[in-house]
C-alpha cells in the first residue's frame, strides 16, 4: 500500500497555484539530477499541466472557461526508475487547490476546510512574487495593498488555528533575486503583524515553517518590461528554479510536526495529576518518557502516528538527520551532510526493487533537496529568535 500525503494549496486568485504545479511537474517529470520522477495520475490533467507550462513560456494565456479552472485536486505519483529501467512507486502527493476567490472573499467559518487542513501533511501558501517585488520597492499601489490587506491575511487567517507545517512559496523569484535577498524579503514579511504572529505560534509548537523562493522559468530567460510583460532572451532555455524544494520538504516537515505534537502531548501528560490520566496517556508517558530525538520518539511512539508515517526504520533515520529543527545547521555540517547523502542516495538506487525500497530512495532525494535548500537559503527556515 502506497502512502498518500496531502497538501492544501492556498493562494489568492492569480497567485499562480496551477502554474506552480505545472512548473513543478515540468521540473520533476523526467528522472534526471534527482533520481525520482512525478507522474500525474490522470492523463487529461497531465495534458493540462503540460500545456499550462508551455503557455507560461510562450506567454500565451490559457483560454477562459476551460476545464482546468474546475480542477481542485491534483495527484502526483512519486516513482523511481531503477537502473534496470523498471519503475516502482514510492508514494503519492495530492494537492488540494483551495479556490482563490473563496479564500479571499469570504470571512465565514469553514469547518469543512479546517478539517482538510487538519488532515494535511503540509500547507502550501503561494505568494505572488511580483507583488512581493513591488512591496520590496515600497511601491504604493493597488497590488501591494491587495497583498498586505487581502492575500496574505486571508492565508494566515485560514491556517492559524492548526499546527500543520507551512511552506510559503514565493513565485517569480527571477524578478526579485537581482535586487533583493531572501533575508531582506523575510525581514520585510516579518514586519507584517499577522505573519509574525503565525510564525511565532508555529515555532512554539515546533512545527516547521519555510519561506521558499521558486521560479517557473529561472533567471536569464526573460527580462521584465516596464509594462509588466516579459521579453524573452533569444536562444535562452527556461530552467525551473527550486520547484522541487516544497515537495521535498513535505515528508520531513510533516513527520517533524507529528513528532512534535506527540512530544507535546507527552509533556502535558507528565504534568497531569495522577488519576486524570487514561490508558492512552499512560502508554505515551511510559514509552516516550526518555525520548528526545526524532528517532527516539519515533522508535517509542511510531504506533501512535497515522498510517502514512509508518515508515521503516531506515527511512526515519534518513529523515531524522535533517530534522533537528532549527539546531546546528551550519554550513560546514550541511556541506558534509550533502556529500554523505549523495553517496548514500547513489547506493540506495541500486537497491530499488519494490515500493518500500523506492520510498527509501525517494526520501534520500528529499533529504538531498532539503539540504541544498538549507545551504543556499539558510533564512528559508522561519524561526524567530
Amino acid at each position, binding site marked *: 500500500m502506497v502512502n498518500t500525503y496531502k497538501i492544501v494549496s492556498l493562494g489568492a486568485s492569480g497567485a499562480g497555484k496551477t502554474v506552480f504545479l505545472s512548473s513543478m511537474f515540468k521540473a520533476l517529470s523526467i528522472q534526471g539530477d534527482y533520481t525520482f520522477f512525478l507522474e500525474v495520475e490522470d492523463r487529461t490533467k497531465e495534458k493540462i499541466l503540460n*500545456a499550462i507550462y508551455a503557455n507560461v513560456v510562450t506567454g500565451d494565456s490559457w483560454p477562459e472557461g476551460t476545464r482546468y479552472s474546475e480542477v481542485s485536486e491534483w495527484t502526483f505519483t512519486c516513482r523511481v526508475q531503477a537502473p534496470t529501467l523498471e519503475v516502482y512507486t514510492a508514494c503519492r502527493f495530492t494537492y488540494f487547490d483551495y479556490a482563490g476567490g473563496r479564500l479571499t472573499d469570504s470571512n465565514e467559518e469553514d469547518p469543512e476546510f479546517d478539517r482538510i487542513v487538519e488532515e494535511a501533511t503540509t500547507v502550501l501558501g503561494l505568494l505572488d512574487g511580483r507583488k512581493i517585488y513591488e512591496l520590496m520597492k515600497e511601491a504604493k499601489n493597488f497590488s501591494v495593498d491587495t497583498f498586505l490587506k487581502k492575500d496574505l491575511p486571508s492565508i494566515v487567517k485560514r491556517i492559524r488555528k492548526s499546527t500543520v507545517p507551512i511552506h510559503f512559496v514565493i513565485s517569480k523569484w527571477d524578478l526579485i533575486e537581482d535586487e533583493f535577498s531572501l533575508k531582506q524579503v523575510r525581514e520585510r514579511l516579518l514586519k507584517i503583524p499577522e505573519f509574525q504572529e503565525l510564525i511565532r505560534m508555529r515555532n512554539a509548537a515546533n512545527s516547521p515553517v519555510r519561506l521558499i523562493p521558486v521560479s517557473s522559468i529561472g533567471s536569464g530567460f526573460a527580462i521584465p518590461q516596464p509594462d509588466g510583460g516579459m521579453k524573452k532572451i533569444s*536562444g535562452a532555455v527556461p530552467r525551473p528554479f527550486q520547484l522541487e524544494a516544497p515537495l521535498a520538504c513535505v515528508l520531513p516537515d510533516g513527520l517533524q510536526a507529528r513528532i512534535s505534537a506527540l512530544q507535546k502531548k507527552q509533556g502535558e501528560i507528565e504534568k497531569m495529576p495522577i488519576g486524570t490520566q487514561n490508558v492512552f496517556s499512560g502508554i505515551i508517558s511510559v514509552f516516550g518518557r526518555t525520548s528526545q530525538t526524532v528517532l527516539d520518539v519515533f522508535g517509542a511512539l511510531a504506533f501512535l502516528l497515522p498510517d502514512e508515517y509508518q515508515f521503516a526504520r531506515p527511512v526515519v533515520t534518513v529523515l531524522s538527520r535533517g530534522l533537528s529543527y532549527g539546531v546546528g545547521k551550519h554550513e560546514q555540517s550541511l556541506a558534509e551532510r550533502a556529500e554523505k547523502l549523495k553517496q548514500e542516495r547513489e547506493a540506495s538506487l541500486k537497491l530499488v526493487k519494490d515500493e518500500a525500497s523506492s520510498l527509501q530512495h525517494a526520501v534520500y532525494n528529499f533529504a538531498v533537496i532539503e539540504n541544498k535548500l538549507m545551504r543556499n537559503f539558510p533564512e528559508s527556515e522561519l524561526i524567530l529568535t
Partner: protein
Amino acid sequence: MSNVNNYDIITLGTSGAGKTVFLSSLFKSLSIQGEHRFFLEVSDSKMERLLNKFYSEILSGGWPAGTRGDIQKWVFTCCVKNQNLEQYPACQFTYIDYAGGLLTDVDSEDEGYDFNFDQEIEKADAVLALLDGLKLLKFMEGKESDNRDVDNWMQRDIPSLMRRVQKCKKIPVHFVISKWDLLANKYTLLEVRNRLLEKVNEFKNVVKNRADANCPVRLIPISSIGVNFMTPQADGSMKKVSGAVLNPFQVEVPLAFVLTDSLQAKISQLKMEQEEISRRPTEIKPKYGFLNRLDQLLSNTVLPSYNALINQFLIINLPEKYKNNSALKELIKLTEQSVKVVDKKIERTQEEVARKQEQAAQETARLRRLQEESLKVVNDEETALSHVVNSFTHIQKKLAENFPESDLGGLGI
C-alpha cells in the same frame, strides 16, 4: 495467414510529426524485394489501397490528412522469396497509428478515442520516438519569429514524448528525426544531436537513463520524400519541385534497429527447437502387454522345444511295447491335441508380434517424416528470418558508417 511471430511497434509523435507519411513511405519503399532481401505485404487489401492513396497524395505534392479518430493497427508481413521464387513469410509487425494530438492536446477532437499510451507501451515490442524535423529545423535556426513554435515544441511536445519514452522498459527504443530533407543541407546530425543534448534536458535525461542501463539508443534521420522533392516556401508550406521524383531516405533504418533484436532472439529459439527436434527419438519399439510378452517368450523359446520334445521322445522314441497301450495312446492323443492348441497359439502370437512390429515400423516412418517436415519448417523459418536479419544488419552497418554520431550511447552525454 501463417503463424509467424508478430511484433508491435508504436511510433510516438505529436500531431504533424509525420507518422502516417513515414508509414506509407516505408511500405512503398519496401513493398518490392529489391536492394533489401525482403519485402512487406499488408494483410488487408483495403489498408493497402489506403496506403497507396496516401502515397499518391504525397507524389502529387500534397500530404495525407492527419490521422483522426480511432487507433489504427497496420499489420505488415515481412516476406522473403526463396530460390524457387516461392514467397515465404518471415515475421509480422503491427504499426500502431493514432492521432498525434492525443499525446498533447487537452481538448482534442479525438478525446473520445483516448489512446492509453502507457498500456500500449507496456505491451509494445519496440518504440520509435519521432522528432518533427520541421520543428527541429526552427529549433536549430533559433529565429526570433519562430520562438513560439519552438517553445511549444520544447516545452509541450518534447516533455510529453519523453515522459512516454521514460516508461519503456528494456525494449528497443530509438529516436527518429522526420523530414531530414529540410535539415540535410544545413546541419550535420552531430550538430543537431549536440544541440538537443545541450538544450533539451528531458531528451538528455531519457537518453542517459537508457544508455546507463545498457540499452542502445540511436538518433536516426529519415526523409519520407527524400531530398529535393519539395522546397519549403516563405509561408511555411512546401512546394513540389517540378519533375522531381520521390526518393525516400533511410525509412527502412528504424525498422532494422527496432526489430533485429527480437528477430535474433527468435532465431536462437528456432535453433534450439531444431536441436530439440533432431534429438527427439523417432524409432518406435513394438509394445506388448504382460500376457503378450509371456506368450511371446513362450512361443519363441519354451513352446517350440516342448513340441519337439513330444515328437522326439513321446512318440518316436517310445519303446514298442508301449505303443499299444491304450491308456498311453489316449495320453499321446491328448498331448498331440494340446500341442496343436499350443501350435495355434504360437502362430497367433507370432502373427501378433509381426503385426505390432509392422505397426511400430510404420509409426517410426511416420515420425521420421514428421521430424523431417518440422525440421524443414523450422529451417525455412530460420532461413527466412536470417535473411531478414542479414538485411537489417547490413542496413544498420550502413547507418553506423554514414552517421556514426547517430549512436547516442557514446560521448556527449
